């Protein structure tokens, strides 16, 4: 079921703001990732502006929902979203990668308000959310835990070790979101072309299903699909849920979309200007 048009327009506007902040911050830092962050914008916005039970003024609230960005290299998207949601001033996003900044190159829960788990070594962020979900059950708390994984990241065995244990213990207060953009960092040649490189992983929904998870597939850039998928995931009983969100790496900037070269490339001043213009003029994503 589509969501109401007015809140949807608001979410779309947020998504444009997040994308602009990502590009501006990476440009200013002269370092960081671009493709993965642009891929996850709608997911982050849906989470922090619609789905999560959180209090930006009290980031350590014990009963808050947890959201773990396991694909930690994309954290600039999360910082931008957290800032817009009021966890810290938006200007602070521009200290990304600067010395002594709270905006680290990979998430650091000891530094940044709103970060529920440190991450950055792919796969290692998959298991702590299972621990959070198990702790909620043990402590009689009703918070929900979300773990956001990259599609390259799920090549790590640890993800599947987590998937097994989560279904073994029927952990239905845990939802995984796979950012399924079909591109990783260097990847594999597509159709024998060494310079076009993709993540060839296939049957992603089937894999999670085979591990005993309830799987929902959706367009990860369409709020009308994403938000109902998140809401459905929370209602599933007796097993964990996995949202396989079809996304586009570099989404929103024509010359970045789907290109592995933009995984961690810093836009030049001209590229930045062109990208910002596209985002401002563009048909709203989501």
């Amino acid at each position, binding site marked *: 079921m589509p969501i109401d048009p007015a809140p949807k327009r608001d979410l779309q506007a947020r998504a444009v703001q997040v994308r602009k902040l990502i590009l501006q911050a990476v440009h200013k830092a002269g370092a960081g990732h671009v493709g993965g962050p642009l891929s996850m914008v709608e997911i982050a916005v849906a989470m922090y502006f619609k789905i999560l039970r959180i209090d930006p003024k009290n980031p350590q609230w014990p009963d808050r929902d947890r959201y773990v960005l396991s694909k930690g290299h994309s954290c600039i998207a999360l910082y931008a979203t957290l800032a817009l949601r009021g966890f810290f001033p938006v200007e602070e996003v521009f200290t990304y990668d600067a*010395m002594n900044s709270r905006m680290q190159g990979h998430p650091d829960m000891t530094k940044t308000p709103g970060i529920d788990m440190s991450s950055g*070594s792919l796969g290692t962020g998959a298991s702590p959310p299972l621990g959070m979900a198990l702790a909620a059950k043990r402590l009689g708390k009703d918070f929900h835990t979300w773990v956001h994984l990259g599609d390259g990241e799920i090549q790590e*065995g640890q993800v599947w070790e987590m998937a097994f244990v989560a279904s073994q213990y029927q952990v239905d207060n845990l939802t995984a979101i796979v950012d399924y953009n079909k591109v990783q960092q260097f990847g594999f040649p597509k159709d024998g072309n060494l*310079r076009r490189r993709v993540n060839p992983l296939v049957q992603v929904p089937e894999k999670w299903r085979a591990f005993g998870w309830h799987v929902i597939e959706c367009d990860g850039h369409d709020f009308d699909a994403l938000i109902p998928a998140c809401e459905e995931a929370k209602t599933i009983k007796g097993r964990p849920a996995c949202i396989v969100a079809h996304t586009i790496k570099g989404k929103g900037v024509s010359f970045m979309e789907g290109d592995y070269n933009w995984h961690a490339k810093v836009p030049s001043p001209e590229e930045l200007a062109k990208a910002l213009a596209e985002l401002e003029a563009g048909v709203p994503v989501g």
Partner: protein
Amino acid sequence: MAKLIEMRATWGETMLELTKTHPNLMVLDGDLGNSTMAQIVAYNAPDFYMNMGIAEQNMMGVAAGMASAGLIPWLSSFACFLANRDLDQLRVTVTQPKLNVKLAGHYSGILTGKTGKTHIDVEDIAILRALPHMTVVAPADSVECRQAVLALTDMPGPAYLRITRDASPVIFGEDYRFAIGPVVPIREGKDLTIFGTGVQTARALEACDLLASEGISAHLVHVPTLKPIDGNGIVAAARKTGRVLTTEDHNIIGGLGGAVAEVLGQHAPFPMKIHGLQDCYGESGPNDAMLEKYGLTPKHVALAAKALLNKAR
């Protein structure tokens, strides 16, 4: 000004060169080819390259199997992942059976292009040095890096090469000859002996100039091979001055300082100071500011030398 060259590029080019002479060579990549420069092989000699995906533990085991069947696998990933993520696979299937697997630990030390604490490995030397049968080499510059790649490829058994990301000064001439094992005297001096390893040796060399301008004569020795450590060479260099400073872009626990202390403590105890990262993790930041905050600049090395001399007096 010394010429600046990226060691990772040298590693990639040397790998490509080796594909012409070593038909059994195989570069295995942990999906970082465009960071580690394994892409040089991926694009130009694709038969010698395989992306093992974002799955380091499997990659290590695959390398063990390949080596057992006669290939020479070079694993290529960040130092932080090679030294940590696949450590159990490394010890059980590579170092215990002494298999011929080579590890290219890229982005070592604190200068990792602002990636921060997860990617800054302060402990790789300590971990790898503690594995029996492992050879550990940290070249000072691109000239030495190239020769170390050639030497490690032709040496039987497991080896780890510590490679840095950003362009660093070339301190050796083309006539330099690297060998696995021996320490390398860089500069003669009489007041204290400084041992450096990896790119920190170049910073120590600058520190020697700073010290010289204050009338202090430092004897600088580069230690490219952290394991097996050149015990005789270290004792001889320490005896020259009777005071020892070690400096490294690594934790002060278990790295070069540890290796030198293990030797001197047992064979020639002299007043000694270990300089490096003060048992802390890293963070994101620009290179100059990182070196300053974490105390690895030539100025910091010189200060450590002076502290040692004052203490020893």
